[in-house]
């Protein structure tokens, strides 16, 4: 097989990673943008999504498709409700003080992680994809003086991976429409820009915060549900995902959804491609190095605004 097919394969893997990352990181970015809260527990919401997906799928028993669809709907709702409760019970009482909320979300991280370990256990468990047809991909080569199509051995993807990419794109578009077109989005953006004045115009800021924290966590959970047929559910899976999300959000510009998506594609694709051709460790090194450069040369991130 030539270089081309390999590159295509690596890009597809990268695109799947990028989609999941974009979903998760946009949740982190939304929470930071509106609430100015750095949510260290975000990775645990992702893990909870994956674990709940396994749980729902195994409760649904026989029907794989039904179980998966239920998980896709229920897991983000449950996780969103847990997060909104955590916001009301913990973060609201800290008056959203930046330093104290970091410490509080670290605490939340360990509580969720250890509770999962105690109930779900240390095993990694798979969820069967609802559909997983192997799709062979054709490639072209020059032979006998003309272009010829052929099917290289091993060059394939699955229908599920394509579904993940499309689902992520659809959800991200939905979030964008919600933020720019809906009444709820208007309230969130007004709160983001001036919390005090938002209150002076009757916006129940605390309720907006609880909803935003819930939506942010719900996005992470959705990412977790989507990934679990590809990567198994494990109680420690949140840490790596959290790290990558932070990398994406810092590069994209904290609080900028567009920047987050661009950075997720950048990091996801390079991670996919570099992991295939070199090693996953090198991919991590390069991503971290990129963050260092962004912080030095463009601290507000690619699309972020300078703090006024």
């Amino acid at each position, binding site marked *: 097989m030539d270089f081309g097919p390999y590159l295509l394969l690596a890009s597809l893997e990268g695109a799947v990673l990028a989609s999941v990352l974009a979903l998760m990181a946009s949740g982190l970015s939304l929470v930071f943008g509106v609430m100015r809260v750095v949510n260290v527990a975000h990775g645990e919401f992702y893990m909870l999504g994956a674990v709940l997906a396994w749980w729902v799928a195994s409760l649904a028993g026989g029907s794989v498709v039904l179980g998966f669809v239920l998980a896709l709907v229920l897991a983000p709702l449950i996780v969103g409700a847990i997060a909104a409760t955590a916001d009301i019970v913990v973060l609201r009482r800290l008056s959203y003080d930046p330093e104290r909320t970091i410490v509080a979300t670290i605490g939340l991280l360990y509580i969720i992680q250890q509770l999962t370990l105690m109930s779900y256990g240390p095993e990694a468990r798979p969820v069967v994809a609802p559909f997983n047809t192997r799709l062979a991909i054709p490639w072209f080569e020059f032979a006998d003086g003309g272009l010829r199509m052929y099917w290289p051995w091993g060059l394939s993807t699955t229908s599920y991976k394509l579904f993940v990419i499309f689902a992520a794109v659809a959800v991200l578009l939905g979030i964008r429409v919600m933020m720019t077109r809906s009444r709820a989005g*208007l*309230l969130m953006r007004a709160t983001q820009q001036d919390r*005090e004045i938002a209150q*002076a*115009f*009757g916006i129940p800021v605390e309720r907006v915060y609880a909803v935003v924290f819930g939506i942010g966590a719900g996005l992470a959970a959705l990412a977790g549900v989507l990934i679990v047929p590809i990567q198994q559910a494990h109680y420690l899976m949140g840490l790596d995902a959290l790290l990558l999300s932070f990398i994406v959000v810092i590069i994209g510009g904290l609080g900028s959804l567009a920047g987050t998506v661009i950075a997720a594609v950048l990091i996801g694709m390079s991670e996919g491609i570099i992991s295939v051709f070199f090693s996953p460790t090198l991919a991590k090194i390069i991503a971290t190095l990129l963050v260092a450069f962004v912080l030095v040369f463009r601290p507000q991130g690619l699309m972020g605004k300078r703090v006024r």
Partner: protein
Amino acid sequence: MLRVEGIDAGYGRAQILRGVSLEAPAGRITCLMGRNGAGKTTTMKAIMGFLPLRAGRITLDGEDLGHLPPHEVPRRGIGYVPQGRRLFAELTVAQNLEIGMMTRRSPPEVLERVLSLFPRLRERMDQRAETLSGGEQQMLAMARALCLRPRLLLLDEPTEGLQPSMIALIRQVVERMRDEGVAILLVEQRIDAVLSIADQVVFMENGRVVDGAAGEALRADPGPLHRYLGV
């Protein structure tokens, strides 16, 4: 009528207001005057419910405001035009007004009426607030507050840094609101502006109300103005 009775308030542990009492009757313009740091803006913030009251009571037409959550205060009919305008900078003019309209679910004709007071905004509806000129931003801040059909209007230095034509327009609108029976509490630094518009003046110093005077009396003898503003 707004009645503030002996309130203590401040930021964190720092107490700013000490026993502040004042009244702003409907259909009258009450000016709040004093040097920088006297507690004028803090008084407005306390009325809006941003700062917890440590003592005292705030009532509007007899209803207690002091114990409402902050977002419920404006829903009682209080429009706030803060110092420095503080628009929702990245939202459009239309969206800024929409937020004012949502506060008390004003019917659509309110927006029409507000835009007829500030026709310039109508041409700028889809522009982001941060791209407006200073005068237009002040119009928008006023318009946003008027969209909630206020019974009480709090204006914190609404003419600061504006050109004379714009000051005249803002003043016209304030007088019109007064004539419609809105209670107006105005923080203003310019003596000539106060003299020409105020029905009554309250002087503040170091977080206390130290004196009060009717507008008529000050026009006859502006002595107290100079005493409390030190000019």
